[in-house]
Protein backbone atom coordinates (compact mmCIF):
# COMPACT_ATOMS: atom_id res chain seq x y z
CA UNK A 1 0.00 0.00 0.00
CA UNK A 2 1.39 3.37 -0.98
CA UNK A 3 1.37 5.54 2.09
CA UNK A 4 3.34 8.41 0.61
CA UNK A 5 1.80 11.82 1.27
CA UNK A 6 4.70 13.97 0.17
CA UNK A 7 7.48 13.51 -2.28
CA UNK A 8 9.90 16.39 -2.86
CA UNK A 9 12.54 15.89 -5.49
CA UNK A 10 15.82 17.77 -5.81
CA UNK A 11 14.42 21.05 -4.47
CA UNK A 12 16.53 24.11 -5.12
CA UNK A 13 15.65 27.67 -4.26
CA UNK A 14 18.01 30.41 -5.31
CA UNK A 15 17.61 34.00 -4.16
CA UNK A 16 19.21 36.96 -5.91
CA UNK A 17 20.04 34.84 -8.89
CA UNK A 18 21.45 37.74 -10.88
CA UNK A 19 23.74 39.29 -8.27
CA UNK A 20 25.23 37.08 -5.59
CA UNK A 21 23.13 33.93 -5.63
CA UNK A 22 22.00 32.54 -2.27
CA UNK A 23 21.09 28.87 -2.24
CA UNK A 24 18.36 28.77 0.40
CA UNK A 25 17.76 25.17 -0.65
CA UNK A 26 20.31 23.23 -2.56
CA UNK A 27 19.05 19.85 -3.70
CA UNK A 28 16.69 18.56 -1.07
CA UNK A 29 14.97 15.20 -1.43
CA UNK A 30 12.19 14.51 1.03
CA UNK A 31 9.80 11.64 1.34
CA UNK A 32 7.06 11.67 3.95
CA UNK A 33 4.59 8.87 4.62
CA UNK A 34 1.26 9.09 6.36
CA UNK A 35 1.44 9.27 10.13
CA UNK A 36 4.91 10.77 10.46
CA UNK A 37 5.80 13.17 13.26
CA UNK A 38 8.81 14.89 11.81
CA UNK A 39 10.94 17.77 13.05
CA UNK A 40 13.15 19.83 10.81
CA UNK A 41 16.01 21.48 12.65
CA UNK A 42 19.04 23.46 11.72
CA UNK A 43 20.78 26.74 12.40
CA UNK A 44 19.20 30.05 11.52
CA UNK A 45 19.30 30.61 7.80
CA UNK A 46 19.72 26.93 7.00
CA UNK A 47 16.54 26.88 4.90
CA UNK A 48 13.86 25.44 7.21
CA UNK A 49 11.23 28.06 6.41
CA UNK A 50 12.12 27.92 2.75
CA UNK A 51 11.60 24.15 2.71
CA UNK A 52 8.26 24.35 4.54
CA UNK A 53 7.05 27.11 2.20
CA UNK A 54 8.01 24.97 -0.74
CA UNK A 55 6.18 21.85 0.38
CA UNK A 56 3.24 23.97 1.50
CA UNK A 57 2.84 25.45 -1.96
CA UNK A 58 3.62 28.98 -0.76
CA UNK A 59 6.81 29.29 -2.78
CA UNK A 60 8.01 27.89 -6.06
CA UNK A 61 11.26 25.96 -6.31
CA UNK A 62 13.88 27.20 -8.72
CA UNK A 63 14.46 23.57 -9.58
CA UNK A 64 12.80 20.30 -8.64
CA UNK A 65 9.20 19.53 -7.80
CA UNK A 66 6.84 18.76 -4.97
CA UNK A 67 4.30 16.00 -5.25
CA UNK A 68 1.54 15.78 -2.68
CA UNK A 69 -0.63 12.70 -2.64
CA UNK A 70 -0.14 12.27 -6.36
CA UNK A 71 -0.47 15.93 -7.41
CA UNK A 72 2.52 17.85 -8.69
CA UNK A 73 1.79 21.15 -6.93
CA UNK A 74 4.71 22.89 -8.56
CA UNK A 75 2.57 23.10 -11.67
CA UNK A 76 -0.49 24.54 -9.94
CA UNK A 77 -1.15 28.26 -10.22
CA UNK A 78 -3.50 30.89 -8.88
CA UNK A 79 -6.83 29.75 -7.49
CA UNK A 80 -6.04 26.09 -8.23
CA UNK A 81 -3.06 26.27 -5.94
CA UNK A 82 -5.00 28.17 -3.27
CA UNK A 83 -7.74 25.55 -3.44
CA UNK A 84 -5.21 22.77 -3.20
CA UNK A 85 -3.75 24.31 -0.05
CA UNK A 86 -7.22 24.75 1.39
CA UNK A 87 -8.15 21.11 0.97
CA UNK A 88 -4.84 19.33 1.46
CA UNK A 89 -2.51 21.24 3.75
CA UNK A 90 -2.98 22.44 7.30
CA UNK A 91 -0.90 25.45 8.31
CA UNK A 92 0.24 26.50 11.75
CA UNK A 93 2.44 29.55 11.77
CA UNK A 94 4.72 30.89 14.47
CA UNK A 95 2.17 33.46 15.61
CA UNK A 96 -0.80 35.57 14.51
CA UNK A 97 -2.46 32.53 13.01
CA UNK A 98 -5.98 33.64 13.73
CA UNK A 99 -8.39 36.27 12.50
CA UNK A 100 -8.47 38.64 15.46
CA UNK A 101 -12.12 39.66 15.07
CA UNK A 102 -13.46 36.11 15.04
CA UNK A 103 -13.92 33.84 18.06
CA UNK A 104 -12.05 30.55 18.46
CA UNK A 105 -15.09 28.68 17.17
CA UNK A 106 -15.51 31.02 14.20
CA UNK A 107 -11.83 30.82 13.32
CA UNK A 108 -12.05 27.04 13.10
CA UNK A 109 -15.33 27.19 11.24
CA UNK A 110 -13.92 29.76 8.80
CA UNK A 111 -11.77 27.25 6.95
CA UNK A 112 -14.71 24.90 6.47
CA UNK A 113 -16.73 27.84 5.28
CA UNK A 114 -14.12 28.45 2.63
CA UNK A 115 -14.64 24.81 1.67
CA UNK A 116 -18.38 25.46 1.53
CA UNK A 117 -19.18 22.68 3.98
CA UNK A 118 -22.80 22.52 5.13
CA UNK A 119 -23.63 24.23 8.41
CA UNK A 120 -24.52 21.11 10.35
CA UNK A 121 -21.23 19.46 9.44
CA UNK A 122 -19.29 22.59 10.39
CA UNK A 123 -20.95 22.89 13.77
CA UNK A 124 -20.36 19.23 14.52
CA UNK A 125 -16.70 19.29 13.53
CA UNK A 126 -15.92 22.54 15.35
CA UNK A 127 -17.33 21.03 18.51
CA UNK A 128 -15.22 17.91 18.08
CA UNK A 129 -12.06 19.84 17.34
CA UNK A 130 -12.44 22.25 20.23
CA UNK A 131 -12.74 19.27 22.50
CA UNK A 132 -9.74 17.55 20.96
CA UNK A 133 -7.51 20.58 21.53
CA UNK A 134 -8.94 21.01 25.01
CA UNK A 135 -10.63 24.37 24.45
CA UNK A 136 -14.31 23.44 24.58
CA UNK A 137 -14.85 26.15 27.20
CA UNK A 138 -13.12 28.84 25.14
CA UNK A 139 -15.25 28.57 22.01
CA UNK A 140 -16.58 32.13 22.26
CA UNK A 141 -13.28 33.82 23.06
CA UNK A 142 -11.47 36.00 20.57
CA UNK A 143 -7.73 35.41 20.00
CA UNK A 144 -6.90 38.48 22.07
CA UNK A 145 -8.57 36.87 25.06
CA UNK A 146 -6.59 33.64 24.72
CA UNK A 147 -3.04 32.87 25.83
CA UNK A 148 -0.35 32.27 23.23
CA UNK A 149 -0.54 28.52 23.82
CA UNK A 150 -4.32 28.50 23.52
CA UNK A 151 -4.10 30.49 20.28
CA UNK A 152 -1.71 27.91 18.86
CA UNK A 153 -4.14 25.14 19.85
CA UNK A 154 -6.92 26.91 18.00
CA UNK A 155 -4.58 27.20 15.03
CA UNK A 156 -3.93 23.45 15.17
CA UNK A 157 -7.66 22.78 15.38
CA UNK A 158 -8.23 24.99 12.35
CA UNK A 159 -5.45 23.26 10.43
CA UNK A 160 -7.05 19.93 11.31
CA UNK A 161 -10.56 20.97 10.33
CA UNK A 162 -10.44 20.22 6.58
CA UNK A 163 -8.78 16.81 7.25
CA UNK A 164 -5.61 17.72 5.32
CA UNK A 165 -2.91 15.36 4.05
CA UNK A 166 -0.52 16.80 6.61
CA UNK A 167 -0.01 19.74 8.92
CA UNK A 168 2.93 22.07 8.43
CA UNK A 169 4.09 24.08 11.41
CA UNK A 170 6.98 26.55 11.14
CA UNK A 171 8.38 27.00 14.64
CA UNK A 172 4.97 26.64 16.30
CA UNK A 173 6.40 26.90 19.81
CA UNK A 174 8.85 29.75 19.24
CA UNK A 175 6.62 32.29 20.96
CA UNK A 176 5.52 30.02 23.82
CA UNK A 177 6.86 29.45 27.30
CA UNK A 178 8.21 25.96 27.91
CA UNK A 179 5.08 24.67 29.68
CA UNK A 180 2.76 25.83 26.87
CA UNK A 181 5.21 24.52 24.30
CA UNK A 182 5.21 21.13 26.03
CA UNK A 183 1.42 21.06 26.16
CA UNK A 184 1.13 21.94 22.47
CA UNK A 185 3.57 19.19 21.57
CA UNK A 186 1.65 16.70 23.75
CA UNK A 187 -1.51 17.58 21.94
CA UNK A 188 0.07 17.32 18.50
CA UNK A 189 1.60 13.97 19.43
CA UNK A 190 -1.76 12.73 20.64
CA UNK A 191 -3.45 13.77 17.38
CA UNK A 192 -0.66 12.05 15.52
CA UNK A 193 -1.13 8.86 17.55
CA UNK A 194 -4.87 8.76 17.70
CA UNK A 195 -5.86 10.20 14.32
CA UNK A 196 -2.77 9.24 12.41
CA UNK A 197 -2.40 12.90 11.37
CA UNK A 198 0.94 13.66 9.73
CA UNK A 199 2.90 16.55 11.26
CA UNK A 200 5.93 18.27 9.81
CA UNK A 201 7.35 21.06 11.91
CA UNK A 202 10.50 23.12 12.12
CA UNK A 203 12.05 24.09 15.41
CA UNK A 204 15.10 25.37 17.24
CA UNK A 205 13.91 23.99 20.54
CA UNK A 206 15.79 20.87 21.72
CA UNK A 207 12.88 19.74 23.91
CA UNK A 208 10.62 19.82 20.88
CA UNK A 209 13.19 17.95 18.82
CA UNK A 210 13.29 15.29 21.52
CA UNK A 211 9.58 14.61 21.02
CA UNK A 212 9.89 14.03 17.29
CA UNK A 213 10.17 10.53 15.92
CA UNK A 214 12.06 11.61 12.84
CA UNK A 215 14.49 14.53 12.86
CA UNK A 216 15.83 16.06 9.69
CA UNK A 217 18.80 18.38 10.02
CA UNK A 218 19.36 21.11 7.45
CA UNK A 219 22.55 23.01 6.91
CA UNK A 220 23.15 25.53 4.15
CA UNK A 221 20.12 24.33 2.24
CA UNK A 222 21.05 20.66 2.37
CA UNK A 223 19.86 17.74 4.45
CA UNK A 224 22.88 16.69 6.48
CA UNK A 225 21.17 14.23 8.77
CA UNK A 226 17.90 12.30 8.77
CA UNK A 227 17.11 10.04 11.72
CA UNK A 228 14.13 7.83 12.08
CA UNK A 229 13.77 5.70 15.21
CA UNK A 230 13.82 2.03 14.29
CA UNK A 231 10.62 1.46 16.23
CA UNK A 232 8.70 3.47 13.65
CA UNK A 233 9.27 1.36 10.59
CA UNK A 234 6.53 3.07 8.60
CA UNK A 235 8.51 6.30 8.64
CA UNK A 236 11.37 4.60 6.86
CA UNK A 237 11.61 4.98 3.18
Amino acid at each position, binding site marked *: MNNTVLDAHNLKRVYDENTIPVYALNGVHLHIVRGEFTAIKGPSGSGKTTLLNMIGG*LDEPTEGYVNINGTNITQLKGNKL*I*NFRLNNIGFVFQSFNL*IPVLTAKENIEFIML*LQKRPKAEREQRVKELLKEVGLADKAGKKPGELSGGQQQRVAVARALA*PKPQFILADEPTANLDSVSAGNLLDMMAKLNREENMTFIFSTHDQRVIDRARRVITLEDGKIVNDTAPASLDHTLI
Partner: protein
Amino acid sequence: MIAKLTWRNLWRNPRRTLITMTSVTFAVLLAILMQSFQKGVFDNLVKNVVSFYHGYIQVHKKGYWDEQVLDNSFQYDDSLVMKLSRNPEIKVLTPRIETFLLASVGNSTKGCMLVGTDPVKENLLTGLKDKIVKGRYFTDNEAAVLIAEGLAGRLKLTVQDTIILLGQGYHGAMAAGKYPVRGIIHFGSPALNDGLLYMPLAQAQFFLSAENMLTSLAVGIREPEKMTAIQQLLLSEMGKEYEVMNWKELMPDIANHIKADGSSFYIFTGVLYLIIAFGIFGTILMMTAERRYEFGMLVAIGMKKLSLGKILLFETLLITLLGVITGLLISLPFVLYFSRNPLRITGEIAEAYERFGFEALFPAAVDNSILIVQSLIVLIIAFLIGLYPLWHVGRINPMLAMKK
Protein backbone atom coordinates in the same frame (compact mmCIF):
# COMPACT_ATOMS: atom_id res chain seq x y z
CA MET B 1 -19.92 35.01 8.25
CA ILE B 2 -18.72 37.39 5.51
CA ALA B 3 -21.12 40.00 6.81
CA LYS B 4 -20.01 39.36 10.37
CA LEU B 5 -16.37 39.57 9.37
CA THR B 6 -16.91 42.78 7.40
CA TRP B 7 -18.80 44.41 10.24
CA ARG B 8 -16.30 43.41 12.92
CA ASN B 9 -13.34 44.44 10.79
CA LEU B 10 -14.92 47.86 10.56
CA TRP B 11 -14.58 48.29 14.30
CA ARG B 12 -11.02 47.04 14.68
CA ASN B 13 -9.91 50.62 14.78
CA PRO B 14 -13.10 52.35 15.88
CA ARG B 15 -11.53 55.76 16.05
CA ARG B 16 -10.28 55.67 12.51
CA THR B 17 -13.56 54.28 11.24
CA LEU B 18 -15.49 57.00 13.04
CA ILE B 19 -13.21 59.72 11.73
CA THR B 20 -13.60 58.43 8.17
CA MET B 21 -17.35 58.10 8.57
CA THR B 22 -17.62 61.56 10.05
CA SER B 23 -15.67 63.10 7.21
CA VAL B 24 -17.97 61.40 4.71
CA THR B 25 -20.94 62.61 6.73
CA PHE B 26 -19.71 66.19 6.62
CA ALA B 27 -18.96 66.05 2.93
CA VAL B 28 -22.42 64.71 2.16
CA LEU B 29 -24.00 67.25 4.48
CA LEU B 30 -22.08 70.13 2.97
CA ALA B 31 -22.66 69.01 -0.59
CA ILE B 32 -26.37 68.51 -0.04
CA LEU B 33 -26.80 71.84 1.72
CA MET B 34 -24.85 73.63 -0.96
CA GLN B 35 -26.69 72.02 -3.80
CA SER B 36 -30.04 72.52 -2.13
CA PHE B 37 -29.33 76.19 -1.57
CA GLN B 38 -27.96 76.58 -5.05
CA LYS B 39 -31.06 75.03 -6.52
CA GLY B 40 -33.38 76.84 -4.11
CA VAL B 41 -31.79 80.19 -4.90
CA PHE B 42 -31.78 79.41 -8.60
CA ASP B 43 -35.43 78.34 -8.57
CA ASN B 44 -36.32 81.44 -6.62
CA LEU B 45 -34.38 83.60 -9.03
CA VAL B 46 -36.19 82.03 -11.95
CA LYS B 47 -39.47 82.43 -10.13
CA ASN B 48 -38.63 86.11 -9.69
CA VAL B 49 -37.50 86.54 -13.26
CA VAL B 50 -40.51 84.86 -14.81
CA SER B 51 -42.88 86.75 -12.54
CA PHE B 52 -41.47 90.07 -13.76
CA TYR B 53 -43.38 89.61 -16.90
CA HIS B 54 -42.93 86.54 -19.08
CA GLY B 55 -44.17 83.54 -17.10
CA TYR B 56 -42.50 80.13 -17.41
CA ILE B 57 -43.97 79.38 -20.82
CA GLN B 58 -45.61 81.39 -23.58
CA VAL B 59 -47.73 80.34 -26.49
CA HIS B 60 -47.68 82.51 -29.62
CA LYS B 61 -48.75 82.24 -33.16
CA LYS B 62 -45.86 80.65 -35.02
CA GLY B 63 -43.40 83.35 -36.04
CA TYR B 64 -44.54 85.96 -33.52
CA TRP B 65 -41.35 85.92 -31.46
CA ASP B 66 -39.23 86.72 -34.49
CA GLU B 67 -41.56 89.40 -35.71
CA GLN B 68 -43.50 90.88 -32.84
CA VAL B 69 -46.32 92.63 -34.62
CA LEU B 70 -50.07 92.58 -34.10
CA ASP B 71 -50.64 90.90 -37.41
CA ASN B 72 -48.93 87.84 -35.96
CA SER B 73 -51.68 87.44 -33.38
CA PHE B 74 -54.04 84.50 -33.01
CA GLN B 75 -57.69 83.94 -32.25
CA TYR B 76 -58.50 83.49 -28.55
CA ASP B 77 -60.10 80.07 -28.81
CA ASP B 78 -62.17 79.40 -25.68
CA SER B 79 -62.47 75.67 -26.18
CA LEU B 80 -58.73 75.29 -26.53
CA VAL B 81 -58.02 77.36 -23.46
CA MET B 82 -60.63 75.44 -21.49
CA LYS B 83 -58.98 72.22 -22.47
CA LEU B 84 -55.50 73.46 -21.55
CA SER B 85 -56.54 74.90 -18.23
CA ARG B 86 -57.94 71.55 -17.17
CA ASN B 87 -54.34 70.34 -16.97
CA PRO B 88 -53.65 70.27 -13.21
CA GLU B 89 -50.01 71.27 -13.73
CA ILE B 90 -51.05 74.61 -15.20
CA LYS B 91 -51.72 77.25 -12.58
CA VAL B 92 -52.91 80.03 -14.83
CA LEU B 93 -53.20 80.94 -18.50
CA THR B 94 -52.94 84.66 -18.96
CA PRO B 95 -54.14 85.96 -22.32
CA ARG B 96 -52.37 89.06 -23.59
CA ILE B 97 -52.33 91.35 -26.55
CA GLU B 98 -49.15 93.37 -26.84
CA THR B 99 -48.02 96.08 -29.20
CA PHE B 100 -45.73 99.07 -29.39
CA LEU B 101 -47.28 102.52 -29.63
CA LEU B 102 -46.82 106.14 -28.69
CA ALA B 103 -48.04 107.61 -25.42
CA SER B 104 -48.26 111.31 -24.88
CA VAL B 105 -49.17 113.76 -22.20
CA GLY B 106 -49.10 117.43 -23.03
CA ASN B 107 -46.01 118.02 -25.10
CA SER B 108 -44.09 114.88 -24.33
CA THR B 109 -44.44 111.72 -26.29
CA LYS B 110 -42.73 108.41 -25.55
CA GLY B 111 -42.70 104.99 -27.15
CA CYS B 112 -44.03 102.21 -24.94
CA MET B 113 -45.47 98.74 -24.96
CA LEU B 114 -49.17 98.36 -24.41
CA VAL B 115 -50.14 95.13 -22.70
CA GLY B 116 -53.80 94.22 -22.83
CA THR B 117 -54.36 91.58 -20.20
CA ASP B 118 -56.93 89.88 -18.00
CA PRO B 119 -56.54 91.73 -14.64
CA VAL B 120 -57.22 88.67 -12.48
CA LYS B 121 -55.11 86.22 -14.45
CA GLU B 122 -52.32 88.75 -14.86
CA ASN B 123 -52.22 89.14 -11.12
CA LEU B 124 -52.08 85.37 -10.67
CA LEU B 125 -49.16 85.15 -13.06
CA THR B 126 -47.03 88.17 -12.20
CA GLY B 127 -48.54 89.58 -9.00
CA LEU B 128 -49.11 92.86 -10.80
CA LYS B 129 -51.39 94.13 -8.07
CA ASP B 130 -48.55 94.09 -5.53
CA LYS B 131 -46.42 96.20 -7.83
CA ILE B 132 -48.78 99.15 -7.56
CA VAL B 133 -47.01 101.98 -5.80
CA LYS B 134 -49.66 104.64 -6.31
CA GLY B 135 -53.35 104.58 -7.15
CA ARG B 136 -55.15 101.27 -7.47
CA TYR B 137 -55.35 98.15 -9.61
CA PHE B 138 -57.73 98.21 -12.59
CA THR B 139 -60.94 96.20 -12.70
CA ASP B 140 -62.03 93.73 -15.29
CA ASN B 141 -63.24 95.87 -18.10
CA GLU B 142 -62.63 99.45 -17.17
CA ALA B 143 -61.28 101.80 -19.77
CA ALA B 144 -58.20 102.80 -17.87
CA VAL B 145 -54.48 102.04 -17.77
CA LEU B 146 -51.75 101.18 -15.31
CA ILE B 147 -48.43 102.78 -16.11
CA ALA B 148 -44.92 101.82 -15.15
CA GLU B 149 -43.18 104.20 -12.78
CA GLY B 150 -40.27 105.15 -15.07
CA LEU B 151 -42.52 105.83 -18.01
CA ALA B 152 -44.84 107.91 -15.83
CA GLY B 153 -41.87 109.92 -14.65
CA ARG B 154 -40.70 110.60 -18.15
CA LEU B 155 -44.20 111.66 -19.16
CA LYS B 156 -44.55 113.62 -15.92
CA LEU B 157 -47.94 112.19 -15.16
CA THR B 158 -49.54 110.74 -12.10
CA VAL B 159 -52.69 108.94 -11.02
CA GLN B 160 -55.94 110.39 -12.42
CA ASP B 161 -54.10 112.15 -15.26
CA THR B 162 -55.14 111.29 -18.78
CA ILE B 163 -52.85 109.68 -21.31
CA ILE B 164 -53.24 109.76 -25.06
CA LEU B 165 -52.31 106.62 -26.97
CA LEU B 166 -51.56 106.53 -30.65
CA GLY B 167 -50.61 103.56 -32.76
CA GLN B 168 -51.50 101.02 -35.33
CA GLY B 169 -54.17 98.42 -34.73
CA TYR B 170 -54.80 95.03 -36.28
CA HIS B 171 -54.39 94.93 -40.07
CA GLY B 172 -53.20 98.51 -40.25
CA ALA B 173 -56.25 100.02 -38.57
CA MET B 174 -55.76 103.33 -36.88
CA ALA B 175 -55.70 103.21 -33.07
CA ALA B 176 -56.08 106.34 -31.00
CA GLY B 177 -57.63 106.96 -27.60
CA LYS B 178 -57.60 108.77 -24.27
CA TYR B 179 -57.40 106.85 -20.99
CA PRO B 180 -57.24 107.83 -17.34
CA VAL B 181 -54.31 106.48 -15.33
CA ARG B 182 -55.57 104.25 -12.49
CA GLY B 183 -52.29 103.32 -10.93
CA ILE B 184 -48.52 103.48 -11.12
CA ILE B 185 -46.58 100.24 -11.03
CA HIS B 186 -42.98 99.65 -10.05
CA PHE B 187 -40.79 97.11 -11.87
CA GLY B 188 -37.33 96.10 -10.72
CA SER B 189 -36.10 95.76 -14.26
CA PRO B 190 -35.38 99.19 -15.81
CA ALA B 191 -36.43 97.98 -19.23
CA LEU B 192 -39.88 97.11 -17.97
CA ASN B 193 -40.11 100.09 -15.63
CA ASP B 194 -39.48 102.51 -18.47
CA GLY B 195 -41.80 101.01 -21.02
CA LEU B 196 -44.90 99.16 -19.87
CA LEU B 197 -48.49 100.21 -19.98
CA TYR B 198 -51.32 97.88 -18.97
CA MET B 199 -54.94 97.91 -20.04
CA PRO B 200 -57.75 95.39 -19.46
CA LEU B 201 -57.75 92.85 -22.29
CA ALA B 202 -61.14 93.59 -23.84
CA GLN B 203 -60.45 97.33 -23.82
CA ALA B 204 -57.12 96.83 -25.52
CA GLN B 205 -58.57 94.49 -28.12
CA PHE B 206 -61.25 97.04 -28.86
CA PHE B 207 -58.72 99.87 -28.99
CA LEU B 208 -56.55 97.92 -31.43
CA SER B 209 -59.49 96.69 -33.53
CA ALA B 210 -58.38 93.19 -32.69
CA GLU B 211 -61.43 91.65 -31.08
CA ASN B 212 -60.70 88.24 -29.65
CA MET B 213 -57.09 88.35 -30.82
CA LEU B 214 -54.05 87.56 -28.65
CA THR B 215 -50.35 87.91 -29.22
CA SER B 216 -49.45 85.58 -26.40
CA LEU B 217 -50.83 83.21 -23.85
CA ALA B 218 -48.54 83.27 -20.81
CA VAL B 219 -48.55 80.06 -18.83
CA GLY B 220 -48.03 79.86 -15.08
CA ILE B 221 -47.12 76.38 -13.86
CA ARG B 222 -47.18 74.80 -10.41
CA GLU B 223 -43.90 72.89 -10.51
CA PRO B 224 -41.02 74.53 -12.36
CA GLU B 225 -39.34 71.08 -12.65
CA LYS B 226 -42.05 70.00 -15.04
CA MET B 227 -41.64 72.96 -17.34
CA THR B 228 -40.10 71.08 -20.24
CA ALA B 229 -42.68 68.33 -20.05
CA ILE B 230 -45.52 70.83 -20.01
CA GLN B 231 -43.94 72.69 -22.90
CA GLN B 232 -43.85 69.48 -24.91
CA LEU B 233 -47.43 68.72 -24.00
CA LEU B 234 -48.61 72.18 -25.02
CA LEU B 235 -46.68 71.94 -28.24
CA SER B 236 -48.48 68.75 -29.19
CA GLU B 237 -51.88 69.99 -28.03
CA MET B 238 -51.69 73.38 -29.71
CA GLY B 239 -50.60 72.17 -33.09
CA LYS B 240 -48.34 73.44 -35.80
CA GLU B 241 -49.68 76.98 -36.12
CA TYR B 242 -48.39 77.88 -32.69
CA GLU B 243 -44.99 78.24 -31.07
CA VAL B 244 -44.49 77.31 -27.43
CA MET B 245 -41.43 78.83 -25.75
CA ASN B 246 -40.06 78.53 -22.23
CA TRP B 247 -38.49 81.33 -20.23
CA LYS B 248 -35.00 80.31 -21.24
CA GLU B 249 -35.91 80.71 -24.88
CA LEU B 250 -37.76 83.95 -24.17
CA MET B 251 -34.90 85.40 -22.14
CA PRO B 252 -31.71 83.68 -23.36
CA ASP B 253 -29.38 86.30 -21.86
CA ILE B 254 -30.74 85.84 -18.36
CA ALA B 255 -30.77 82.06 -18.73
CA ASN B 256 -27.09 82.12 -19.72
CA HIS B 257 -26.21 84.38 -16.86
CA ILE B 258 -27.83 82.21 -14.21
CA LYS B 259 -26.32 79.05 -15.64
CA ALA B 260 -22.80 80.44 -15.58
CA ASP B 261 -23.17 81.28 -11.91
CA GLY B 262 -23.89 77.65 -11.02
CA SER B 263 -20.51 76.36 -12.16
CA SER B 264 -18.59 77.69 -9.16
CA PHE B 265 -20.78 75.51 -6.94
CA TYR B 266 -19.81 72.48 -8.95
CA ILE B 267 -16.13 73.29 -8.65
CA PHE B 268 -16.51 73.64 -4.90
CA THR B 269 -18.31 70.31 -4.54
CA GLY B 270 -15.71 68.75 -6.81
CA VAL B 271 -12.93 69.90 -4.49
CA LEU B 272 -14.94 68.68 -1.52
CA TYR B 273 -15.23 65.24 -3.01
CA LEU B 274 -11.57 65.17 -3.88
CA ILE B 275 -10.74 65.82 -0.23
CA ILE B 276 -13.11 63.08 0.85
CA ALA B 277 -11.68 60.70 -1.70
CA PHE B 278 -8.21 61.25 -0.27
CA GLY B 279 -9.56 60.84 3.26
CA ILE B 280 -11.12 57.48 2.48
CA PHE B 281 -8.11 56.42 0.48
CA GLY B 282 -5.79 57.26 3.37
CA THR B 283 -7.83 55.09 5.69
CA ILE B 284 -7.86 52.21 3.23
CA LEU B 285 -4.15 52.56 2.64
CA MET B 286 -3.39 52.37 6.37
CA MET B 287 -5.79 49.48 6.79
CA THR B 288 -4.26 47.40 4.01
CA ALA B 289 -0.73 48.12 5.24
CA GLU B 290 -1.59 47.13 8.82
CA ARG B 291 -3.33 43.94 7.84
CA ARG B 292 -0.80 42.79 5.28
CA TYR B 293 0.37 39.85 7.39
CA GLU B 294 -3.20 38.75 7.99
CA PHE B 295 -4.05 38.92 4.28
CA GLY B 296 -0.99 36.74 3.59
CA MET B 297 -2.06 34.27 6.26
CA LEU B 298 -5.60 34.07 4.87
CA VAL B 299 -4.42 33.43 1.33
CA ALA B 300 -1.89 30.89 2.66
CA ILE B 301 -4.53 28.83 4.45
CA GLY B 302 -6.72 28.81 1.35
CA MET B 303 -8.83 31.94 1.02
CA LYS B 304 -9.27 33.07 -2.56
CA LYS B 305 -7.94 36.53 -3.24
CA LEU B 306 -11.19 37.65 -4.80
CA SER B 307 -13.18 36.64 -1.71
CA LEU B 308 -10.76 38.52 0.50
CA GLY B 309 -10.82 41.52 -1.83
CA LYS B 310 -14.60 41.55 -1.74
CA ILE B 311 -14.62 41.75 2.04
CA LEU B 312 -12.28 44.73 1.87
CA LEU B 313 -14.43 46.38 -0.78
CA PHE B 314 -17.50 45.84 1.40
CA GLU B 315 -15.67 47.37 4.34
CA THR B 316 -14.92 50.49 2.31
CA LEU B 317 -18.47 50.69 1.02
CA LEU B 318 -19.95 50.09 4.44
CA ILE B 319 -17.90 52.83 6.13
CA THR B 320 -18.94 55.19 3.36
CA LEU B 321 -22.55 54.08 3.36
CA LEU B 322 -22.83 54.68 7.09
CA GLY B 323 -21.29 58.10 6.60
CA VAL B 324 -23.65 58.86 3.72
CA ILE B 325 -26.74 57.76 5.63
CA THR B 326 -25.78 59.86 8.62
CA GLY B 327 -25.10 62.77 6.30
CA LEU B 328 -28.50 62.37 4.69
CA LEU B 329 -30.27 62.12 8.02
CA ILE B 330 -28.56 65.22 9.37
CA SER B 331 -29.04 67.26 6.21
CA LEU B 332 -32.72 66.50 5.86
CA PRO B 333 -34.01 68.64 8.75
CA PHE B 334 -31.70 71.49 7.68
CA VAL B 335 -32.93 71.39 4.10
CA LEU B 336 -36.56 71.21 5.20
CA TYR B 337 -36.07 74.04 7.65
CA PHE B 338 -34.40 76.35 5.16
CA SER B 339 -36.93 75.58 2.48
CA ARG B 340 -39.67 76.80 4.79
CA ASN B 341 -37.64 79.53 6.45
CA PRO B 342 -35.34 80.90 3.77
CA LEU B 343 -32.29 82.82 4.83
CA ARG B 344 -33.25 86.47 4.55
CA ILE B 345 -30.55 88.99 4.02
CA THR B 346 -30.89 92.59 5.10
CA GLY B 347 -29.04 95.84 4.58
CA GLU B 348 -27.69 97.33 1.41
CA ILE B 349 -27.44 94.13 -0.55
CA ALA B 350 -31.02 93.32 0.27
CA GLU B 351 -32.06 96.78 -0.88
CA ALA B 352 -30.18 96.36 -4.13
CA TYR B 353 -31.89 93.03 -4.66
CA GLU B 354 -35.28 94.50 -4.02
CA ARG B 355 -34.68 97.51 -6.20
CA PHE B 356 -34.25 95.13 -9.10
CA GLY B 357 -37.37 93.29 -8.19
CA PHE B 358 -35.77 90.27 -6.56
CA GLU B 359 -36.69 88.94 -3.16
CA ALA B 360 -33.68 89.03 -0.85
CA LEU B 361 -34.33 85.41 0.05
CA PHE B 362 -32.12 82.35 0.00
CA PRO B 363 -34.34 79.32 0.28
CA ALA B 364 -33.15 75.71 0.13
CA ALA B 365 -34.79 73.47 -2.41
CA VAL B 366 -36.19 70.14 -1.27
CA ASP B 367 -35.19 67.89 -4.10
CA ASN B 368 -34.86 64.13 -3.79
CA SER B 369 -32.62 63.99 -6.80
CA ILE B 370 -30.02 66.13 -5.00
CA LEU B 371 -30.00 63.69 -2.08
CA ILE B 372 -29.80 60.69 -4.37
CA VAL B 373 -27.19 62.10 -6.72
CA GLN B 374 -24.90 63.33 -3.94
CA SER B 375 -25.13 60.00 -2.11
CA LEU B 376 -24.46 58.09 -5.29
CA ILE B 377 -21.45 60.22 -6.16
CA VAL B 378 -19.89 59.53 -2.76
CA LEU B 379 -20.67 55.81 -3.01
CA ILE B 380 -19.18 55.61 -6.47
CA ILE B 381 -16.05 57.34 -5.20
CA ALA B 382 -15.93 54.80 -2.36
CA PHE B 383 -16.39 51.95 -4.80
CA LEU B 384 -13.51 53.15 -6.94
CA ILE B 385 -11.33 53.50 -3.86
CA GLY B 386 -12.49 50.06 -2.71
CA LEU B 387 -10.97 48.64 -5.86
CA TYR B 388 -7.55 49.52 -4.49
CA PRO B 389 -7.50 46.84 -1.75
CA LEU B 390 -8.92 44.44 -4.32
CA TRP B 391 -5.94 45.15 -6.53
CA HIS B 392 -3.59 45.07 -3.54
CA VAL B 393 -4.82 41.62 -2.46
CA GLY B 394 -4.69 40.42 -6.04
CA ARG B 395 -0.95 40.95 -6.05
CA ILE B 396 -0.23 39.65 -2.59
CA ASN B 397 2.32 36.88 -2.21
CA PRO B 398 1.47 35.12 1.04
CA MET B 399 5.03 34.10 1.71
CA LEU B 400 6.37 37.63 1.38
CA ALA B 401 3.40 39.19 3.16
CA MET B 402 4.00 37.00 6.20
CA LYS B 403 7.69 37.71 6.38
CA LYS B 404 8.61 39.73 9.43
